[in-house]
């Protein structure tokens, strides 16, 4: 019995949706319940928290409410209706007390107005919640709290601290430490208990930045801690030609985890081309997997991937952009085997860049027919005055049938209206036909509120 294939093909989920298969949640843990009151409380109390420095502070507040409505038919013919209501809140307060100190928060919560749509009837998460000091010179900075960190070998969400500075000669250093924010659904594995590391680097303006980094996460990942050594390089070789490199060695597994090298030519604001090589080993990269699809027997962890890629972005006429991308993915193992993906698309921006229309096609060819498919997509938006209308259509054609079907379609139509300068109301209707869905209609209502008390922009 090929366990890997069974895992990937999800043959273990024979339940149906509107007459066909659907992976509805069955046994999932409810770990975000306790966070919801905290998310709401933090956001509501925030203005009071900073009341003393309100005059000096630069406050922005964003609220996005999503109400979804859809129905699922389960095995046995039972029809369940779902109406989850999501609230995404974010607050950024800069210039606290007239100092280069800022506070950032974002989080979300869900309440189900009908059947449970996920892990229980409520859920939520705090994405980030931290104080940041940004020194006016040398990009020296410090963060304290929960934040998303990308620094050398690290791409983590941590509850902890981060400091970074650059000296006058261009040498710099960063250090971080804390508790990793991870989630485990793999039996017998727990998330890492602590994580720390740092990066030393040298940067010369407009010419190069080269860094060496170290990361250590204490835990039991495949029975070991995670320990990484990283290297990164950006080098402006000549004029518009630059070279980037990034490599990570997994000391715990004694394996090169990943490498990526690319040459890029950016001669101006209309043309951009890049080509490169990327590789990773399953054993080195997937060591910290806490979800079962990345470990044996779902995958053979002795496999290695080598990819050659190229991308072109060419604004050939003002407003019109041509995008072409290709990559050749080679596996050491014959299963799953090699694959090639080619993609071509054109985009047209108009109405003072408020609107974009695009067409694209992608083709995946592979050693194994089950991995081959084509994808075609078209989209457009139209935003006269306060109204905004968008249409997005996508179709995928699989070479081999999946659950008896070779085609999938999805069309998303939206209509929105700018009620106030800071308030927009919009709605989506999504129609889907796929191997999972005989026919599916889903609705979404979106209420977006963005308030800023000073000029300046962030997205």
């Amino acid at each position, binding site marked *: 019995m090929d366990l890997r294939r069974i895992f990937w093909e999800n043959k273990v989920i024979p339940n149906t949706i509107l007459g066909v298969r659907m992976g509805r949640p069955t046994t999932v843990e409810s770990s975000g319940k306790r966070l919801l009151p905290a998310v709401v409380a933090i956001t509501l109390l925030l203005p009071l928290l900073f009341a003393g420095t309100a005059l000096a502070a630069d406050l922005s507040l964003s609220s996005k409410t999503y109400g979804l409505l859809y129905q699922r038919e389960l095995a046995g013919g039972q029809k369940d209706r779902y109406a989850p209501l999501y609230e995404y809140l974010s607050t950024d307060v800069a210039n606290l007390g007239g100092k280069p100190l800022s506070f950032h928060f974002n989080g979300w919560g869900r309440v189900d107005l009908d059947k449970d749509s996920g892990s229980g009837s409520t859920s939520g998460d705090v994405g980030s919640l931290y104080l940041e000091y*940004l020194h006016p010179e040398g990009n020296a900075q410090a963060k304290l709290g929960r934040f998303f960190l*990308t620094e050398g070998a690290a791409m983590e969400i941590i509850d902890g601290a981060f400091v970074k500075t650059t000296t006058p000669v261009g040498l710099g250093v960063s250090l971080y430490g804390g508790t990793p924010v991870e989630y485990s659904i793999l039996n017998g594995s727990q998330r890492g208990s602590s994580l720390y590391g740092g990066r030393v680097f040298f940067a010369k303006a407009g010419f190069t930045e080269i860094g060496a980094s170290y990361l250590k996460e204490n835990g039991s990942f495949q029975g070991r801690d995670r320990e990484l050594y990283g290297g990164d390089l950006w080098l402006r070789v000549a004029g518009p030609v630059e070279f980037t490199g990034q490599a990570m060695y997994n000391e715990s597994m004694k394996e090169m985890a990943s490498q990526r090298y690319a040459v890029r030519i950016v001669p101006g604001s209309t043309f951009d081309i890049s080509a490169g090589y990327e590789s*990773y080993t399953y054993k080195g990269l997937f060591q910290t997997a806490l979800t079962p699809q990345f470990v044996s027997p779902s995958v053979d962890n002795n496999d290695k*991937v080598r990819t050659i890629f190229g991308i072109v*972005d060419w604004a050939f006429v003002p407003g019109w952009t041509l995008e072409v991308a290709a990559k050749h993915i080679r596996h050491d193992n014959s299963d799953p085997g090699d694959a090639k993906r080619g993609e071509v698309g054109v985009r047209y921006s108009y109405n*003072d860049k408020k609107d*974009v229309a695009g067409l694209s096609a992608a083709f995946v060819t592979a050693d194994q027919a089950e991995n081959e498919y084509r994808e075609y997509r078209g989209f457009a938006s139209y935003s006269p005055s306060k109204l905004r209308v968008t249409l997005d259509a996508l179709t995928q054609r699989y070479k081999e049938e999946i659950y008896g079907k070779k085609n999938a379609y999805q069309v998303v139509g939206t209509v929105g209206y700018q009620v106030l300068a800071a308030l927009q109301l919009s709605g989506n209707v999504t129609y889907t036909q796929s191997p999972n869905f005989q026919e599916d209609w889903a609705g979404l209502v979106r209420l977006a509120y963005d308030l800023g008390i000073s000029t300046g922009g962030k997205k």
Partner: protein
Amino acid sequence: MMRRSHAVKIFGAALLALLFGCSAVSQTPSVPPKHPEDLPPGRVDCLECHKDVSTGALKPYATVRHSRVFINSHGTYARQGQNLCSSCHKPEFCQTCHAGREELKPNVKMGDRPDRMAPHRGDYLITHRIDGRIDPGSCFRCHGNKNDARCKQCHK
């Protein structure tokens, strides 16, 4: 084990020496924490206003031009520093995709922005089986040990 412990201490000491030995922080002005002017809608081209090299990020503005090339490789640049990014993007922008725990797909949240690069369009429950087989490394970065609310529905 002992040698590694010493190596870590030496590494830490070297870092501190570098930090405090050179003492003074570079005089180069930092990237402002917030872009001083309102940003226009859509995909912004820094080169429309900025020339040459960003004094804070120490890279040419052409390097961070938000072309398809940059978007595909933005992680490479972000691993050398986030300050220039965070001048225009709030933390929630990154975490639209790079989330710790998330239930809504980026393209569902941004259904009214079909111009944005948003992974997992269409019925991705089907397509991810193919993409996951041929290039699982691209999935792992976001779904390996976090952001697994949807994974766990089937992968147990």
